């Protein structure tokens, strides 16, 4: 690991002022620090955002759950409010990595990083989330741009994520047996009017599967997607799963999610 400057920002304004093209925000550090240690990334400045009060905490209103960006996975999984409002979101958080990762990693960091196999991005898509930054509000559907790519501009800081409370929802992950990231994770959420089927792990970026959403909006039963043959041409292949297997898993996990709703 190369030398770097450490800053602890007291508010969003200071954090974004300190940011440059060779800086990173330090939230849980669960992505940033290993990549620095392995020499995959080098930064001149690390800007710690954990001491910014405004970024932590969970608020529940009648229609939405708003989670501060620096809120840790363990806080989301343990929150009684989240469990009550959107139980699937709390169980998603409980299934991330291992206790060490959950005790440090944050929702903002996870979303900003947009790992193609991360769990939270699927929640954002399925639960029609709004990403609140220090500059603007971004709809989830417009936030996740591609592999490790988001709509965030340099120095732009996520402050909170606002999730719409669905009628029913469930997240079903088929974990990579080694890392326990998602080989495929499917987040099904039934809102008034329509159904979202957000898929992570299968392609280079999280997406809403239109075909299954449509079928389930018509008839919210796993039988309506049973045997669906998804196009696997854009799906990932790696040593843990081929595109063909992933395509099948997407349907299987979606069915499980519908049945669990």
């Amino acid at each position, binding site marked *: 690991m190369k030398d770097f400057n450490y800053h602890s920002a007291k508010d969003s304004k200071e954090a974004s002022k300190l940011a440059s093209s060779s800086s990173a925000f330090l939230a849980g550090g669960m992505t940033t620090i290993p990549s620095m240690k392995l020499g995959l990334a080098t930064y001149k400045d690390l800007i710690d955002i954990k001491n910014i009060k405004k970024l932590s905490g969970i608020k529940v209103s009648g229609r939405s759950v708003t989670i501060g960006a620096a809120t840790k996975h363990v806080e989301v999984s343990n929150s009684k409010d989240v469990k009550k409002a959107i139980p699937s979101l709390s169980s998603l958080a409980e299934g991330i990595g291992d206790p060490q990762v959950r005790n440090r990693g944050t929702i903002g960091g996870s979303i900003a990083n947009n790992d193609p196999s991360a769990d939270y991005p699927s929640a954002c898509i399925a639960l029609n989330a709004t990403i609140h930054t220090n500059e603007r509000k971004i709809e989830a559907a417009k936030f996740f741009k591609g592999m490790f790519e988001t709509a965030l501009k340099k120095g732009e800081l996520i402050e909170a994520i606002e999730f719409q409370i669905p009628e029913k929802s469930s997240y079903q992950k*088929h974990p990579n*047996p080694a890392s326990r990231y998602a*080989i495929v994770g499917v987040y099904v959420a039934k809102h008034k009017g329509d159904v979202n089927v957000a898929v992570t792990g299968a392609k280079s970026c999280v997406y809403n599967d239109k075909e299954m959403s449509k079928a389930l909006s018509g008839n919210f039963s796993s039988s309506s997607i049973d045997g669906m043959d998804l196009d696997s041409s854009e799906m990932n292949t790696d040593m843990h799963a081929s595109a063909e297997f992933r395509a099948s898993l997407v349907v*299987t*996990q979606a069915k499980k999610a519908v049945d669990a709703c």
Partner: protein
Amino acid sequence: MASLVGSRVERKEDKRFLTGKGRYTADINLANQTYAIFVRSPHARASIKKLNIDKALKSSGVVSILTGKEIADDKIGGLIAGWAIRSEDGTEMKCPGNPPLAKDNVNFVGDPVAVVIAESLAEAKEAAEKVEVDYKVLKAVTSTADAMNGDTIHEGIDKNLCFDWLLGDRQKVKEAFDKADKVISIDIINNRLIPNAMEPRACVADYNAASEEITLYTTSQNPHLSRLIMSAFGNVAPEHKLRVVAPDVGGGFGSKINVYNEDIVCSWAAKKISRAIKWVAERSESFLTDIHGRDHVTHAELAVTKDGKFLGFKNETIANLGAYARVFGTVTPTYLFGPCATGVYEIPAAYTNVKAVYTNTAPVDAYRGAGRPEATYTIERLVEKASMELGIDKTELRIKNFPTAFPFKQTLVHTVDSGDYVAGMEKAKQMADYKGFEARRKESEAKGKLRGIGVTSYFEACGIAPSAAVMSLGCGVGLWESAEVRFNPTGQVTVYTGSHSHGQSHQTTFAQIAADELGVPIENIDIVHGDTDKGTFGMGTYGSRSLAVGGIAIVNACKKIVEKGKRVTAKMLEANPEDVEFKDGEFIVSKSNKKKTIGEVAFACYLPGVRDEMKSPLPEGDEPGLKETSFYDPSNFSFPAGTHIAEVEIDPETGHVKLEKYTACDDFGRIINPMVVEGQVHGGLAQGIGQALYENAEYDETGQLMTGSYMDYTMPRADNFPEFNIGYTCTHATTNPLGVKGCGEAGAIAAPPTVMNAVIDALGGQEVTMPATAEKVWKACKNLKKSNAKAA
């Protein structure tokens, strides 16, 4: 006094480990120490055209940079294979040189080419990045099955073949096969594993210019053996000027038997710079450079009669040695493998042929079980297949071919002294509720799941081993063990053992044994190991030999103490030594009932006189002091055995295999501490189940390790396992005074075929390779559905 042997004595080492007071190599920091970083080859196979250290030398804090050239100039020796194996045609095996720092060629990713020594770790790392190596990249050979057709890796070693070894009689086997009603054949792969000890390898080397002595603290399972190798072959220092200390070691599993490049380089370099040098592997270095395990490709056949009698067995195996042959690298796929490949069965004719090949991958060597897991996997997968093809119940078929009497003279090498395989099978069936399986299978089926049951009956040859026997087979050393038992004048005991504990709880079990032998409270007994300056000598811990060999040396040394005690007591109490009996720590003269405690005897031995009288308690010919040594050379291997039964449930939609039940019924002979044995069984099972369902070391065709971190190499975790159902049968070993057999490797030996037999049973007999990952199983489920549909 109640016997301690057999009871669940709390582990003496737990306090230290559970309170963070263990002292591992990385915890050792010496005054004025420097830090080493190794520059490693990023290529699997290349020649080194140029190596330039000029820039790196100017980097801040650099003390020294040494390369393959300096190590060759100083005539430091390379790493070695400890067993010489001869091919079927009578030629000796072919081994390439393996310099501790490569000079001309590199042969696997991670092969070190230089060491950078600096004032701090950060500076060493920084400088290491500035070492410029110009490689000419060559085509790598990575596949075990195709290695013989690849480019020649080491000059002069044709077809990359180290040896082509045969054990058994091809002609007799042919005759047996000619008579068979049926031949069952199987093609299997024993997947490559990375040991992953919790503590990565590390060493701290120090040099004392005044005494000219090198001290090496290192993560070793066998410090004396390491010293011998480093001195005799590495030419690092004469043995009396080399002290090797292996303090607390956090797991070995065979990966810490070898003397590694870093041990030699740091010891040699410490002398060169006359300062201490510390090196601690990063986890990624462990993945790349620790020895790997298994990696066999096997075709095997079993000739049977239609009513299920085994007639003959063939085993054709290609074993991957990796880039170089290391200490147990050549014996693991031969004498530790072949003799066990006929399993627990009477098979009149058998042979095993092994072609050991070099590839551009990390060296492969002994890993928990070493050869016996591969052997057991071969025979037990075959037998299970035979039961399917013959339509004979898998447990009946096994029992039918078990030996009928002990000692059991095996077809190939071993004479198994003791066992009762039928009792083990019957007990395992009961424990696993074998009878109830069909009902459970139906329940799973009703949920849309596939359920399978798998059985393995195994034996293994451990407690290695009689020196004359192993040396006749090519071993470079004898495999005895030594112990020294020392009384203090005030009655406490220190036991020095050449065995090394890196998770095996010797501090407790060995103390239990000594406490029973000497009648001294266990609190007054200390076990000392792991330092060539302490105790006599040691061959170390591997091959489940600590108790069956090292433990017996302790028993024998204690017996010598008691003999001397009897003589001293006789003299003190004016009796005949033959009339003195020893029991529970007291020497009793049977005729007069007069007695002396062992503490009194020890005191008298060290203070042999009394005030105002010219009188010694020591009989003529006995010297003062109470200390005895034993070098114990076993008369045979020890042969633990047992039956394991696994049950899995498969979700055909996701291919997920859930291990529902695992039953292990083992015969380890006399058990010293049931709690410790349970720990050993659990650990072995975790590794064996890991091999079957999760772990796999994968190289791509250029020789890059694809599974170089825990993101891709699946180490099993606690939630991957059910509660293990563990039980024992007990037949005492007849070849050692404690009646013990080894227990350290059994789980890793028996679990892979047990689990795979269950998986394949659930899949209607379809072969899948280890590890049975979700995708492989999912595909097999799809095929099963298709063939079921056709049948319907």
